[in-house]
């Protein structure tokens, strides 16, 4: 039982990171009907930004430093997300969806390989932004301050996202555009600006996820975005793609399931699990846990 609860805590921490990435997928899919394959690479760039921010003079060791690095990574990733949308996706707004998807794969590969060229392919040790210590030890169940940081930062970020989407003018515009592009345009919404904003918002969350992974994992590397990116997408599908609470729940389930499989079966099966979940959900409930079924129109 102790081990189970411990795995659950580890899984929830890992799942919060998936959830942060999955939110970006789900928002972009909601608004453009596009699997933004490059999203995993934005998350990688977040972790890399954190690494270089510390290398180039940011100090380490306190929560203040963590917050500062987190902000830098979120800003850099927002700019990157904006640039990706502007450069690669906007010229293809009227193209068939499959072409945009192939472009997205191209952008993802471009970031991976340029990353390997610029940063070097070897894994880099992520600087210890905060010191790892156990703050709770209850009959063998351990909660570290890093895990607590991950929980608190992801909860704050998600509350922020919720506020933006539900309470602000821009959030209202986002919801309108995801419902119908043409109608939003007719009532005076600048659709392109809303799409750019969605990319900025999603990328900022991915950047934050990159830093949170950095403080809990020992190393970062230019290919680290590939698998978590795809798995976070699976998490978004699991929760119901286009649905923001769905991405959160999907991410948490995915994180817990992966940790349980690594803990009780074997780490080598971990990578297959996400895809087994994906295929089950596509066959049994394609709209996802929280998604609505939509009738297809001719």
């Amino acid at each position, binding site marked *: 039982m102790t081990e189970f609860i411990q795995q659950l805590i580890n899984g929830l921490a890992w799942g919060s990171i998936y959830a942060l990435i999955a939110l970006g997928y789900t928002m972009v899919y909601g608004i453009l009907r*596009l*699997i933004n394959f490059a999203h995993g690479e934005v998350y990688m760039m977040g972790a890399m930004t954190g690494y270089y921010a510390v290398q180039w003079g940011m100090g380490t060791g306190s929560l203040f430093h963590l917050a500062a690095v987190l902000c830098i990574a979120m800003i850099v990733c927002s700019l990157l997300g904006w640039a990706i949308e502007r450069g*690669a996706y906007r*010229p*293809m707004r*009227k*193209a*068939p*969806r*499959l*072409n*945009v*998807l*192939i*472009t997205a*794969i*191209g*952008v*993802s*590969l*471009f970031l*991976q*390989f*340029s990353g*390997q*060229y610029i940063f070097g392919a070897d894994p880099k040790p992520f600087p210890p932004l905060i010191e790892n210590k156990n703050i709770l030890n209850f009959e063998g169940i351990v909660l570290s301050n890093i895990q607590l940081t991950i929980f608190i930062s992801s909860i704050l970020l998600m509350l922020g996202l919720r506020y933006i989407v539900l309470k602000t003018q821009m959030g209202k515009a986002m919801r309108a555009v995801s419902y119908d592009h043409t109608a939003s345009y007719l009532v005076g919404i600048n659709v392109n600006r809303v799409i750019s904003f969605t990319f900025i918002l999603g990328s900022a969350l991915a950047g934050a996820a990159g830093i949170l992974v950095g403080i809990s994992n020992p190393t970062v590397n230019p290919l680290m975005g*590939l698998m978590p990116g*795809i798995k976070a*997408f*699976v998490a978004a*599908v699991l929760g119901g793609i286009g649905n923001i609470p769905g991405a959160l729940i999907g991410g948490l389930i995915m994180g817990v399931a992966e940790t349980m499989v690594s803990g009780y079966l*074997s780490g*080598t*099966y971990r*990578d*297959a699990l*996400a*895809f*087994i979940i*994906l*295929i089950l959900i*596509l*066959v049994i409930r*394609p709209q996802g846990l929280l998604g609505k079924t939509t009738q297809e129109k*001719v």
Partner: protein
Amino acid sequence: MKQAPAIVLTIVLLILSHYLLNALINPYYLRVILLIGLSITLATSLNLINGYTGLFSLGHAGFMAVGAYSAAAVSVFLIPKLAFLNGLIPELIRGEVFFVLSLLAGACAAALVGFMIGLPTLRLRGDYLAIATLGFAEIIKVFFNNLEAVGKAKGFTGIPAIPHAVNFFWVFFIAVTCVWVVGKMTSSSKGKDFAAVREDEIASSSLGLSHFKVKMKAFVIGSFFAGLGGGVYAHLEGTIYPENFNILKSIEFVVMVVLGGMGRLWGVVLAAAFLTLLPELLRELPPPFSILSQFRMILYSLIIIITMLIRSKSFAKSIN
């Protein structure tokens, strides 16, 4: 059999060029040529799925893996047990018969896996299909990574070489067959089904075409040839690793199909040859330019993005 003379001629030509190339060209260049042949097989079989039928499979390397591992397993575990058949088969072609047997076993295994994967996934649309095929390819990789009998991540070793070392003949015999079959299938009147499903699923199904059956046909035949290619690859290399068949491998074939023009037979063949040759050409460049070979993969990704951007421009024009 109207085509019989053509087939005989092709085989004779292939055998002749095999001996010519072996005599004239050094082993390094010969190996590049063999890799080109394999790429043509894999890209053309993917072209049937992604290009002609308009599906989007991102897991072609998975079928190649099934073919490679099954063919290798038949060669390593089953063939030695078939020694009692030796009396029935003349000495000269015994190796070839067993080799063809294992290749066919690999290809059929790949086709079967393609069928089983197609059952749930071919009901999905565009991008969902892409991610589901990617997922299955990854599951296949994890499966071989955990299978004790084929050496797990350390690789499946000791796969016998192609009998009599007629590598060129087999690689290109399969490439030619694949291109020929895909070309014949898609240009026949029945083969227009593929394009019909690609262009408009609703209109074609209203004409009584079962688009599920058409997609399945493309998927199974595509996997069959991917398996054949994988089987030859395994016997060519002698050792195969699950990592040989990862996502990047699948993406390489997708790039070939995209660059060659989806649904263009010879365009894809050319693109497969060009993209296999490109890294070797870049490596041969004199020093100031040889740095370009490090950019190979960056170049690949730019090729994808630019091809798609140009294509969407012309697409937008054709609408206006």
